[in-house]
C-alpha cells in the first residue's frame, strides 16, 4: 500500500485565523494537484505560535458548526488533513492541539502533553496540559500525532509505538537557535537527529512538519522530514521557506523492515511495566 504524504511548512499570521485558514485551503489545493492522500500542517498552523494573551480569542472547536473547521472538514472529503489549532474544551481550558480530519470527520484530536516553559518558551503559562497519548486508526493504518516538545521526551513516541502507531506525524513551531560554525542550527540538528532515531528504533515512518516565518525576532526553520522504518531520510523540505514537500510512502516497508529487525516483536513491555512500577513506587 502506498501513501502520498504532503508536508505543508507554512508561515502564519499571528492571531489571524481567517487568513491562516485561506493559506491552508490554498496548500490543500496544491496538495490535491500533486495527488496527495494526506497533508500535515505545523503546530498551531491556524493561529501562529507566540500567542500569549491572544489564546482565548483564536480558540476553535473541531466541529462541523465551527466557522473554521467546517471548511477544513469539507476539504477532508478529498484528502486527509492534520491541522494545528487552539482547542477550547467545554469547561474553557485551552490546549495546543492537532486534529486528524478524514472523510469529513474528526478521527482524532491530540492535546500537547509537554508544554515547554523555560528559556524562550512560556507555554505552561497560557495553555492547559494534555493528558493522553493515543494512536488511532486511519485508512492508511494506525497513526500517532505528537506536537514539538512531546517528542523531545522519549516516552510519548514509545507509548504511540506500543499503542500500534506505524506512522508518527510530528508537528512543530520550532524557533531556530544555536548558531555556530555549522551549516545547520543546533535546534534543527537536534530535531533531525531524534526523528531519525525514533524511525530507526521503532521501525516506523516518522514525518515531521515544522513551520517557517518570523514572529518578532524568532525564525521558525522549516526543514520538514520523512524517515522510513529503516531510519532512512526519504524527503526533506527547505529551511526557512514555505514549501509543500511531497513523498510517496511504501507502507509495505514496515513489513520488510520488521521481518529483518523484529524490535517491536521483542519489546518486553511487561519488563518495562514492572520496572516502572518499582521505580515510581520507590520514589
Amino acid at each position, binding site marked *: 500500500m502506498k501513501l502520498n504524504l504532503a508536508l505543508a511548512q507554512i508561515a502564519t499570521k499571528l492571531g489571524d485565523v481567517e487568513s491562516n485558514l485561506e493559506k491552508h485551503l490554498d496548500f490543500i489545493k496544491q496538495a490535491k494537484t500533486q495527488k496527495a492522500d494526506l497533508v500535515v500542517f505545523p503546530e498551531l498552523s491556524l493561529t501562529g505560535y507566540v500567542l*500569549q494573551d491572544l489564546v482565548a480569542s483564536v480558540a476553535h472547536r473541531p466541529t462541523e458548526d465551527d466557522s473554521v473547521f467546517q471548511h477544513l472538514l469539507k476539504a477532508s472529503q478529498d484528502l486527509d488533513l492534520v491541522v494545528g489549532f487552539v482547542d477550547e474544551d467545554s469547561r474553557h481550558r485551552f490546549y495546543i492541539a492537532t486534529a486528524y480530519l478524514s472523510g469529513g470527520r474528526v478521527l482524532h484530536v491530540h492535546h500537547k502533553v509537554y508544554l515547554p516553559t523555560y528559556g524562550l518558551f512560556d507555554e505552561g503559562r497560557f495553555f492547559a496540559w494534555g493528558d493522553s497519548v493515543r494512536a488511532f486508526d486511519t485508512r492508511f493504518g494506525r497513526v500517532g500525532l505528537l506536537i514539538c516538545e512531546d517528542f523531545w521526551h522519549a516516552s510519548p513516541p514509545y507509548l504511540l509505538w506500543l499503542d500500534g502507531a506505524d506512522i508518527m506525524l510530528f508537528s512543530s513551531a520550532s524557533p531556530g537557535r544555536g*548558531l555556530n*560554525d555549522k551549516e545547520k542550527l543546533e535546534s534543527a540538528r537536534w530535531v533531525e537527529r531524534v526523528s531519525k532515531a525514533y524511525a530507526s528504533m521503532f521501525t516506523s515512518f516518522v514525518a515531521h512538519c515544522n513551520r517557517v516565518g*518570523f514572529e518578532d525576532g524568532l525564525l521558525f526553520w522549516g526543514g520538514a522530514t520523512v524517515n522510513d522504518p529503516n531510519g532512512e531520510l526519504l524527503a526533506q523540505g527547505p529551511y526557512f521557506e514555505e514549501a509543500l514537500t511531497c513523498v510517496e510512502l511504501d507502507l509495505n516497508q514496515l513489513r520488510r523492515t520488521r521481518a529483518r529487525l523484529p524490535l517491536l516483536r521483542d519489546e518486553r513491555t511487561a519488563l518495562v511495566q514492572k520496572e516502572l512500577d518499582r521505580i515510581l513506587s520507590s520514589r
Partner: protein
Amino acid sequence: MQIDLTINTDVARKILTGFIKSEVTRVGYTRAVVGLSGGIDSALSCVLAVEALGRDNVLAVRMPYKSSSPDSLAHAELLIEQLEIPHKTIEITNMVEPLFVQDPAMPKLRKGNIMARERMIVLYDQSEVFKGLVIGTGNKTEILLGYTTQFGDAASAMNPIGDLYKTQVRQLARALNIPAPILDKTPSADLWEGQTDEGELGFTYERVDQLLYLLVDQRYSPKECVEAGFDETFVDVVVKRIQRNQFKRMQPPIAKLSNRTIGYDFLYLRDWGT
C-alpha cells in the same frame, strides 16, 4: 580552554536579511533608514538592509559633529559608493552646540549622550521623510555592557545584529565584503577626539566576548569563569556592568495598579496580527 565564537556566515546572512525583510514589510513598509557612522556595526546593518530590501530602498544618513574624525565620513562614503545607495549628510553641530554653550563646564560624557540622542532625532525624522524604518546597529557586546546611550544609538525599529558579539560582527562583515578600512580600523564611538571603545572600556573586544559567551550563552557562574582562566577583577567588572545596565535593555517599568497592566499581564508580540 578553547572558546570558539565562529559562526556560519551563510546561515547568519540568510536569517538576518530574512528578519529585516519580514519585519519591514509585514507592517506595510518597503524601506529602511540607517545611520552610517563609518564603523563596522552600522556598515554591517546597512549591508544586510540593502540585501534584504534592495539598494534603492535603504537611506544611509551620515551625521557628523565638527570634531568627528574625517575618517568616519570617508569610510561611510566608501560603503555608500560600494552599495550605490541613497544617502544624506546632516551635520548635527548646529543642533547640539546651543545646548553645550548653556553649560561651559559640560563634561564629555554628557556631550556624547546629547550627540547620540540628536542623531536619533535626525534618524527618526528621516524615517518619516524616506518612509523607512530605522535599522538598529547595536551589537550583543555593547548591549550587554551597556556601552550605548539609552534613547540614543540604542533606539531603533528593529535590530538585526543585536545577537552577534563584536567579534562575530567582524566575521560576518568580512564575509559580506565590507571595505577593508572599515574592517581594520580601531573601534570608536567617535564622540570626542581620540576616543576608542577598548581604551574606554579597559579591555579588548576579543577577550570580553569570550567571557560574555561563557557567562551569558554557556551560563557559567563568575567563579567558573575565573577557573576557566579569566582574571577575577575583569570578571567582576564585567558582571557588574551587565547587571548595572539592565535598565538600558528594558522598557521603563510601570507601577501596577489595575488587574491588567502593560508589561506584566498585557502580553502580545509586536508582530500581533501580521
